[in-house]
């Protein structure tokens, strides 16, 4: 256990260093995210004109939700992990991991954590710059339970985000090109993850259905706990239970794809 910790600690540190090389890419990406935020603020402010609430939430609560999503995206969102895994399989770089005492999933997940640590910290810079213009629109509930339940929800969301990306990467054992799968899945995740609109604004039946899908737990669920869209601890506890089930299911699926994929894999060269 101690050896494993040391092994992946080094992977984490290497990941931090290599991601610091791309700090400008992350900073530019974060700045462009602010443009998306401005578009969302413009749209929702216009939709709220003459109204005090939409779906039971004020303009400030709705915009807080979108700001929270933007920040979470940089802390727990999967960026291009699917392509990285896919590249390593297609180029044969994965072979080196098959010969070493390294768990490939753990290795990639550690790199994901290090990358999100850097991108998450970097997004705070442009956010701090626009805070003087944004703060009047922000309102966060102060119930302590939101933090205690929000943190495990965030951790599991990160695993789900990474797990789905990892599964798509593993598809490269079967398909040469995974880009169209990834983009299609991205579109589904964007809607059902609550990034286009808060999911509770959907018709009740659709919203209920979305709560049983993994996408709900990718981003909307932790954001809804932290921003007050989930009203009670009991509701959050049920969500945490379903989210844990999805984590287990995804880990199981990864195991199956990995073992079956390896059977198809051919390592050439030395």
């Amino acid at each position, binding site marked *: 256990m101690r050896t494993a910790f040391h092994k992946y600690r080094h992977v984490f540190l290497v990941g931090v260093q290599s991601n610091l090389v791309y700090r400008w890419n992350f900073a530019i990406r974060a700045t462009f995210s602010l443009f998306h935020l401005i578009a969302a603020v413009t749209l929702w402010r216009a939709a709220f004109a003459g109204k005090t609430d939409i779906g039971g939430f004020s303009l400030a609560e709705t915009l807080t939700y979108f700001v929270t999503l933007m920040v979470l995206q940089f802390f727990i969102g999967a960026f291009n992990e699917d392509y990285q895994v896919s590249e390593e399989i297609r180029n044969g770089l994965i072979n080196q991991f098959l010969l070493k005492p390294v768990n490939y999933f753990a290795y990639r997940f550690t790199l994901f954590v290090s990358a999100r640590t850097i991108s998450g910290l970097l997004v705070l810079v442009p956010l701090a710059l626009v805070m003087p213009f944004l703060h009047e629109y922000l309102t966060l509930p102060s119930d302590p339970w939101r933090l205690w339940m929000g943190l495990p929800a965030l951790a599991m969301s990160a695993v789900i985000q990474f797990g789905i990306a990892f599964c798509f990467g593993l598809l490269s054992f079967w398909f040469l090109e995974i880009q169209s799968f990834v983009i299609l899945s991205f579109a589904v995740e*964007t809607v059902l993850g609550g990034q286009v609109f808060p999911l509770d604004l959907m018709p009740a039946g659709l919203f209920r259905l979305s709560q049983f899908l993994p996408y709900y737990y990718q981003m909307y669920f932790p954001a809804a706990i932290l921003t007050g869209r989930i009203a009670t601890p009991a509701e959050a506890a049920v969500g945490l239970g379903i989210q844990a089930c999805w984590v287990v299911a995804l880990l199981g699926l990864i195991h199956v794809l990995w073992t079956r994929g390896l059977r198809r894999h051919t390592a050439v060269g030395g």
Partner: protein
Amino acid sequence: MPAIHYLRIWLACVRYSLVRMMMFRADFIMWSLVEVFWVMVNLMLIGVIYRHTDSIAGWGPYEMLLLFGTSRLLQGMLMGFFWSSLFEMGRNIRTGQFDFTLAQPGNPLFMAATRKLDMDSLVNVIASAGIVVYAVHKLGLHPGALDLALYAALLGSGLVIHFAALLLITSATFWLIGTQGIEGSYFTLFDFARLPREAFRGVASLFFVYGLPAVIASNIPASALLHGFNLTHALWLALTAAGWLALAIFVFNRGLKRYSSASS
């Protein structure tokens, strides 16, 4: 080189793109699905917001649908006719393979911008046109041939603005070799195209309506269908398009002078 030769070259590129699409049929179907799904994502957003409100900045649901359809039409045409070629241009500048484009007997910008057509994005154009037609029908509008011709001309000006913006962004590669994926910023900037002009207020209006032309590129054609042709707005759009295109071509040519071959 006379225009007829350029037309022949372009038709050869169309033929090549069609053959390529037929070779990768499954890919074409998958990407067309992706395009249609993204349209549905945006339709869902409009549907969800209008479940809770009647108007966004004075635009009703079908008016908003018309605006959205128009903005998707513009984006679909840009993606279909120019995106792949300009995206490849950025990559070729980075790798030095842009030499091959420069070696071809023709205007470098024409050769670089029209090499490949994306057929799946042109499927998006058809879907977007369907949305516009549906919105026009639901709004009870009966545009005549002249109205449709003016709408098409305004769309043409809007397309020039989209093209100029993408060319400007891609031309930045001549100076910023290390900024891979910079072309994606086009989508961020043109995210505003689906919003009504009236939704922008104060400084945001100055910047996003008068500074960045994404908003007027879609709003003016959509308003022309809704409220009739407005000469002042049309001139505003045409002059903006001409100005942005001139700027983009100027920057591209300056970039060309900077470009040093990587292969020799």
